[in-house]
Structure formats: C-alpha cells, structure tokens
C-alpha cells in the first residue's frame, strides 16, 4: 500500500512536468493549430542555459528567472522568424519546420554543451522526511512550483486584459482583429509564454532525469499523451491530462509493464484516447462546416 502511495506521489511529481509541457503545446495548438514538435528541445536548450548560468556562479533562482525570460525571447523569435512565413501553409510544412527546428536545437545542444549526461542541482532540500517519507523534497518543491506557475498562467488568462486579448486572438483571429487586438503580437506572446513554461518545466525536471541533449524527448511524448487525453484544444484538460498520464505511467511502470516499457504506456494512452474519446476529456468534438 505504501508502495502504491509512493508510486502515485512520484507520478504526480512527474505529472506536474508533463502538465506544463502539455499546456505549452496546447497554447500553441489553440492559437495556430500547429503542434510544436520542437517544444521539448526548446526546453532542453533553456535548461542548458540555466546550468551554464549556475556554473558561472549565478544563484539558482536568479538563473531560473534569467532563463525563463531568455526562453520567452527565444519563443517570440521562433514565431517571428520561422513560423510567421508558414502560418497558412499546409500541415506538412509546419511539421517539417518543427522537425527541422528539433534537429537543429538538439544537435546544437550537443555541439555547444556536450553529449555527456550532466547532473543538475536541486534548489529544494529538507533535513527530515516529508509526508512520512512519501515524497522527496525535490518532488514536493517541484510539484509546488509547477502548480504555482500553472495557477499564475490561469490567473493571467482569466483576469488580465492582455490574457483576454490573447484568448480572443486564439479563438477568433478575424473578430479579434476587428476589435483592435494586434493578433500577430498576441501570437508572438503566446509562443514566448509557451517557451517560458517549457523552460520552467525543463529546469524542474533536470535534477530528476539528469541533463543531456535528449532529456525532453520522452517527456514530450508523455506531454502529447496528456494533451490528447485532456483534449488538445483545452488548456485545463491538458493540465489534468498531464497529471493523469504521470500517475498512470508510474503505476503501469511499477506494476504492469515494467519500467523498460514506460514509453510504450504513452503510445497505449494515445491510441486508447483516439479509439474511445478522440476529443479528449475536456475537449470539444471537432465539427467542420463545409
């Protein structure tokens, strides 16, 4: 029983990471109907930047803030330079550009920072066991921080005029434009925000899985599964989906398929969602008017 509780709590901890990346994916999907296959690699690059800053003597939280701000800029730049020209191009084009971006960032990570696996410091320490030894200090801190980030994002979208404008631009660009909203600026902001959320997730997961250029590839897969499970057009669904996938992954890995098949769990979840409820838990069924 303690074992199961332990699996669930560490599932929630990794679920928090998946939820963040899922949310980043869904934000971009909502606004542009593109799935950013390079989301994970962008986060990995951010994490490398954070590690470099920490090694250069910047305190952890300083490095965290600087990295998140830089990643925001990276997101905006990617949108401006790469995505703007192919916004209305066929799906194949955007997939090609994203895969290209994934390859370039992945290779540059290796080139600049090296292919060896690096440990990453955790900012969360505790002298005595937490919750009866069920969670490690890092798991608790990481989950807490992610929940704070997700709440801030929700508050931003729900209660600020800028958040409302961004939602309007994503849902109905032409009406939003008629209301005087600068849709293209909103798209750039959305990309920046998604990249910043991804960076926070990368820094939070790096102490657990260690840092190398391929750190996020598995995580991106779980995030896809989470986004589909929650409904690819629903941000709240993505967050819930991310947590559910985290718990499922751990329970399946520990009791049913074994840890060596963990990534297959993501595939099974994706196929199961598509078979049973393609719209996801909170997503709307797609209806296209002819």
């Amino acid at each position, binding site marked *: 029983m303690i074992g199961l509780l332990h699996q669930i709590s560490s599932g929630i901890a990794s679920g928090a990471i998946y939820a963040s990346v899922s949310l980043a994916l869904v934000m971009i999907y909502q606004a542009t*109907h593109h799935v950013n296959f390079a989301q994970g690699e962008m986060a990995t690059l951010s994490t490398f930047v954070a590690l470099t800053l920490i090694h250069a003597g910047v305190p952890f939280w300083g490095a965290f803030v600087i990295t998140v701000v830089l990643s925001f800029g990276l997101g905006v730049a990617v949108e401006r330079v790469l995505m703007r020209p192919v916004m209305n191009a066929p*799906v194949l*084009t955007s997939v090609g550009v994203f*895969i290209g971006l994934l390859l370039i960032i992945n*290779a540059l990570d290796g080139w600049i920072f090296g292919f060896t696996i690096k440990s990453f410091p955790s900012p969360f320490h505790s002298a005595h066991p937490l919750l009866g030894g069920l969670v490690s200090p890092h798991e608790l801190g990481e989950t807490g921080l992610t929940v704070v980030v997700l709440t801030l994002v929700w508050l931003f979208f729900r209660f600020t005029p800028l958040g409302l404008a961004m939602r309007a631009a994503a849902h109905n660009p032409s009406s939003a434009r008629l209301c005087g909203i600068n849709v293209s600026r909103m798209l750039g902001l959305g990309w920046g925000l998604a990249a910043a959320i991804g960076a926070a997730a990368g820094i939070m997961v790096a102490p657990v899985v260690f840092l190398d250029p391929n750190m996020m590839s598995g995580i991106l897969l779980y995030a896809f599964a989470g986004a589909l499970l929650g409904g690819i057009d629903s941000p709240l669904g993505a967050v819930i989906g991310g947590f559910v996938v985290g718990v499922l992954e751990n329970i399946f890995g520990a009791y049913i398929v074994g840890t*060596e098949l963990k990534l*297959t769990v993501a*595939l099974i979840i*994706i196929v199961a969602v598509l078979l049973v409820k393609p719209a996801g838990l909170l997503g709307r069924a797609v209806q296209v008017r*002819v």
Partner: protein
Amino acid sequence: MTGNRSALGGALVVFAVLLALAFVSDSYHLFQLTMLVVYAVAVLGMVVLTGYNGQISLGQGAFFAIGSYATAILMANYNWPYWATLPVAAAASALVGFLIGFPALRLGGLYLALTTFALAVAVPQVLKVDALSGLTGGVQGLTMDKAEPPFHLPLTGDQWIYLFTLGVGGLMFLLAWNLTRGRIGRAMMAVREQSTAAEAMGVSLAGIKTRTFAVSAMLTGVAGALSSIAVQFVAPDSFNFFLSITLFVGLVVGGVDSIPGALFGGAFIEFVPNIANDISKAAPGVVYGAILIGFMFLMPRGVGGLLARALRRGRKLAAPAE
C-alpha cells in the same frame, strides 16, 4: 499518354544504369548502392502516404524496424531462406500499419503524425524487452547468415544481394506507380485534395486512408527486410527515432509527391550523413534540420518536383507550336 511513355522510358534507363553498376562497383560501393535502394523503397512508402494521400507519418522507422525484425527473426531463429521472409515482413508491417492507422486516421491532420511519433519512440523499447529477448535477441540483436547467389551464378555475394534488392525495389516502385495511377490512386488524391467532396462521391474516407497507410507501412517494411538481408544484423538501437526523422527528411528532399523523387531521397539518406559526419558529430543534425527548413521554405516539392518542372519546360521548348 506520351507522359506515361516517357516516364516509363526514364525509369527503364535509370534501372539499366543501376543494374550495370552491379558489375563495375567494388563491394563497399555495392553495399552503399544496396542501402540507397533500400532507403528509396522506404521513402517510397512515405510518398504514397504523404504525397498521394496527404497524411503525415513521423514513425516510418517503426515499420522499417518491424520488417527488419520479421526477416531477422525468421532467418536467425527459424532458418528460413532470406527470400521467403519478404512476404511475412510485408504482411507484418502492413498489419501494424492498419492497426495503428485505424484509430488515428478517423481524425484528420496531425493525429497520425502524433501517433506515429509515439510509435517510433516506443518501438526500440519494445525490441529491447527481456520477455521477448528469446525472439529478438534483446539489446544484442540478431545476426544472420549472408545470402548466397542461387544456381551457382558467377556473382559475388555482395553483387547478388544488390541485384536482389534492386529487383525487389523495382517491383515495389512498379507497384506504387500502378497503384497511384488507378482507381485507388484517384480516390487517394481526392481524399487529399477535398475529403468532403470525395466522401460525397462515395469514397470511404477512413477506408482509403487506413489502407493507404497499410500500403505505406508495407513498402517501408519491405525496405526494412531488404536492409536486414543486406546488413545481416539487427539491433534495437538502429531503429531509434532518428531513423524515422531521417526517412522524413529523405521524403522532403526527394519531393513528397514524386515517385521518382524517392530515389533522390534514398541517395540523400545514404550519402549526406557520411559527408556531414566528417565535419562533426553534431553536424548531421544541424545539416538535416537546416535542409528540412530550407526545403520547406524554398523548394517544398523537393528534387522530384524540380525535375518534373524542368521536364515540362523542356517539353514546351521542344514543341513550341502548342
């Protein structure tokens, strides 16, 4: 009609050149040529899927792996002759393609890309699983015997493997060419262009998409089987996600809707990484990524599209009266 005839002529010339190369190349170049044909067939599977049906697969490496392993398992564990494994490899990959495609293809656009992405990431793990290692050889993989030329033909083993690959590859190209030019090919293109109109004309959307995906998986699976025969060794890590990406890049470079372009895709996959690897370990990734983005922006129809345009222009110049 003249278009068809000149295409056939062109194909015969290319085939004859590839055939002649068998007798003038050393064994190292023969192996490279064999792999070129293998990758061309794999890319061909994606041309049928993406070019003619408008669906995107990012996990074609998984079908390559299934074909490879089907052949390897039958040859190494059950002592089947290499040629007899091909139908099994084709059927196995087509079946998996059908099963994966069925849920994903009912929905449009990106869902197949997402599902196949997951498949490609998951396959190496499945191949490594301990429970299956009696069959798959686990992390170590499987080693097979080298195919010998039949009927005491005066050929070296490498020559024979190349000729065999070329023969099967040629057959696959013929099959794809015929398929895309018949009733089914028209249905595939109708689904790509205007799925609603196609449905109104009685084309079963899910049926055509799923079967196209199965054919695409089959072609790539056959390529995998041929590569097993050529390499005589399989291991899980040869079929990682990067293989799927490589095939995708080959598709874009060759031209998504160009059957002859698949040959350029195959050549690209076989030769460019070698060149790039000489520069740096990270270079292939950067080169691939840059080429992918560059083609998307500048040449979205790839080398095949460029050739088709050049041919058309040439024909116009030759017949100025029209």
